[in-house]
């Protein structure tokens, strides 16, 4: 949050320039885009608040109780909370929200999967709800603190669920005004608001009269809109402009590393050539991640040290530095793996087969990732591995990724728990006909499965996640590149702009404008 003295003043409109990932639907439960929470959190409060240090604080729930078997959660809810349409926040409302997330008709792309173990719930009294899970699920509370699982008016869920996408009604500090698709979303202050999260700096209504989120997809446009004063703050400050921002006395800068899985290139471990751990390790050692990341981020990003980001609870700081750039070792590993031949282009061969890896990428592949891909490709070439970038059409890409028809794939997964490792690497999460999973590396390792499952069930997660990270370094199912930051830049007159740590995105409850 911004430094400087003075008492907060109410009033004014803040305009935030967002990147172009405009959610197709503003129902928090109905979207999965990275701009989802920033747009829905002003409207919809969450059940609990996640603090930057990983502790869970009360918000719309005053307190909670977890049964010993980890299957029953009993929530005591806050009194006196009202939704923007006048509906009352109570146990029934929470139950309806859970059911709304699970309801296939909501077509939830994310929330439903996050609460997959949710079985049903029972209204104990007006403000007490007992939730039953089908299996122990330690990260349940962490997940509930994310904006994707914000609370929507029970009245709207019951009476007009089809309107939630267009016009979400929640209990948040801002009331939704208008969504000009492709352009902006506007909100105004909720004067009755008096139930801010524990982590907030103040109580009562928000300071800002109005809030506008403007979608500015082009990096250059977004940065210049800030520099020229057209907007008050921008999200996802382009790394090439961060230095300018920092050098500009009129601008402030705020950044947080997103918890979860770092931006990585996953290697498909279920088929050659990356079914051989030596080949994976070789590639990992062949890529000079340090210099690549420094170049593409103009020195702004931290190189990932493992398979969760440094801000994720359970991050194994002790393992830092385990991945080293060592092309010589890479060559040796490939020799060991039997890729000893060379063709005329210098690509390694084994039994007459070339060492090729196919890397299909999407049309809207971010420019930076493209840079990393190209430089990785160049590094791999040096050790005799031919990475072929392909641009199949979007739909074919989905088909191929569902079928496992690729050797490399890229991405990150932001979530505020080390359970992200279960999401990404548990053999249960390999996509099949029946189930879509996030185990893009298609890793199947009994030891890892066991560690992650046990951590999930609540048994000493700190230690288990540590072991899992160590195990992953051996398995090398991905090249982790950088810990994805959420860099926000703003005019100095914007004060107390903060993040929701659960899914770092700008949070405006405490924010005020110095005139």
């Amino acid at each position: 949050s911004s430094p400087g003295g003075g008492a907060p003043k109410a009033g004014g409109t803040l305009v935030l320039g967002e990147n172009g990932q405009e959610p197709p639907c503003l129902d928090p439960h109905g979207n999965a885009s990275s701009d989802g929470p920033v747009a829905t959190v002003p409207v919809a409060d969450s059940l609990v608040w996640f603090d930057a240090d990983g502790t869970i604080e009360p918000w719309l729930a005053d307190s909670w109780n977890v049964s010993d078997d980890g299957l029953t959660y009993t929530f005591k809810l806050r009194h006196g909370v009202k939704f923007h349409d006048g509906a009352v926040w109570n146990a029934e409302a929470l139950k309806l929200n859970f059911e709304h997330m699970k309801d296939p008709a909501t077509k939830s792309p994310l929330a439903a999967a996050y609460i997959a173990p949710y079985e049903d719930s029972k209204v104990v009294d007006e403000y007490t709800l007992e939730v039953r899970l089908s299996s122990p699920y330690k990260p349940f509370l962490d997940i509930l603190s994310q904006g994707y699982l914000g609370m929507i008016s029970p009245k709207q869920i019951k009476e007009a669920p089809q309107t939630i996408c267009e016009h979400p009604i929640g209990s948040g500090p801002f009331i939704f005004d208008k969504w000009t698709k492709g352009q902006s979303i506007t909100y105004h202050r909720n004067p009755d608001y008096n139930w801010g999260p524990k982590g907030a700096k103040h109580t009562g209504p928000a300071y800002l009269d109005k809030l506008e989120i403007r979608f500015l997809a082009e990096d250059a446009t977004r940065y210049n809109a800030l520099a020229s004063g057209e907007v008050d703050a921008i999200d996802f400050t382009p790394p090439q402009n961060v230095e300018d921002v920092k050098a500009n006395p009129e601008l402030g800068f705020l950044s947080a590393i997103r918890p979860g899985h770092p931006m990585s290139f996953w290697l498909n471990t279920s088929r050659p050539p990356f079914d051989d751990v030596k080949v994976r390790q070789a590639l990992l050692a062949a890529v000079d991640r340090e210099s690549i990341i420094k170049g593409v981020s103009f020195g702004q990003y931290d190189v990932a040290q493992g398979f969760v980001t440094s801000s994720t609870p359970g991050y194994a700081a002790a393992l830092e530095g385990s991945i080293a750039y060592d092309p010589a070792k890479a060559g040796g590993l490939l020799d060991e793996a039997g890729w000893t031949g060379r063709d005329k282009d210098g690509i390694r061969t084994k039994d007459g087969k070339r060492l090729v890896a196919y890397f299909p990428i999407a049309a809207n592949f971010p420019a930076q990732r493209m840079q990393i891909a190209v430089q990785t490709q160049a590094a791999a070439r040096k050790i005799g591995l031919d990475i072929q970038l392909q641009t199949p059409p979007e739909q074919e890409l989905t088909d191929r990724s569902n079928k496992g028809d690729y050797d490399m794939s890229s991405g990150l997964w932001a979530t505020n728990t080390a359970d992200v490792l279960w999401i990404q690497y548990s053999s249960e999460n390999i996509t099949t006909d029946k189930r879509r999973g996030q185990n893009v590396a298609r890793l199947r390792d009994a030891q890892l499965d066991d560690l992650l499952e046990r951590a999930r069930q609540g048994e000493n997660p700190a230690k288990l996640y540590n072991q899992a990270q160590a195990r992953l370094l051996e398995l090398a199912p991905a090249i982790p590149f950088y810990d994805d930051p959420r860099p926000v830049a703003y005019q100095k007159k914007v004060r107390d702009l903060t993040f929701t740590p659960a899914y770092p995105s700008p949070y405006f409850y405490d924010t005020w404008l110095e005139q």
Partner: protein
Amino acid sequence: MKRPGPGLWLAVAVLAVLVLAAVAPHLLSAQDPLAVDSAQTLRPPSAAHPLGTDENGRDVLARIVYGTRTSLLLGFGAIAIALVFGGLLGLAAGLGNRVVENVIMRLSDIGLAFPELLLALVVITVAGGGTANAVLAIGVANIPGYARLVRAQTLAVRRSSYVEAAHALGLPGRRVILRHVLPNAVKPVLVLATIGVGTALVAGSALSFLGLGTPPPEPEWGSMLSTARNFISRAWWYGVFPGAAITLTVISVTVVGRALRLRSEGRTSW
């Protein structure tokens, strides 16, 4: 006939360089267009890199030179497809009976009414990304337009006295079409085609802008330009030079095309 002016010679020279770049790029640039250097990203023009480097530390000059083949393929290939198929359809519509004409014209109406971008997306959806498909996409999207133009021309030429004179001479119909109708109907369309090479190149870069063009790391002017826009505030050279390559190509093609056309009509060139 007037002697060709310096502009024409310049244009011919540019085209010659382009052809050389397409056929033997290594003669024009000693650098490897794919050689990544993470330590040398976005460097301004210097002795080592006359036109600077790109975001991956690659030599911009080498990428422009090596990108010539793909870029020219995109420009000329797409227009060739549009001209050949548009020309044939237009000719068929202009010469055929009412049924043929109506079928072709309504189909081309559908083609024109169908958003060009969607058409391109369709080709790419069906056939996948890549240069060849971008050529196909842009070419196909341009077919109906050329078909319409050629048909209009064919109708006019068909009614002209010299075609009638050719018939009156007792020439076989096929020969009249081939020798008289086709060349005269296509001639004015060529004006558009020379500039069309440029618009096709541009369309290719628009596809790159939408992520549907030539896949990396292959160099291609349009996709260079598209990537360069992200760095315009830091690296003007990255966008300006590929842009200049496109413009220079278009101007040269137009100038030479115009001179050839005027000469074939027996008029002097500028």
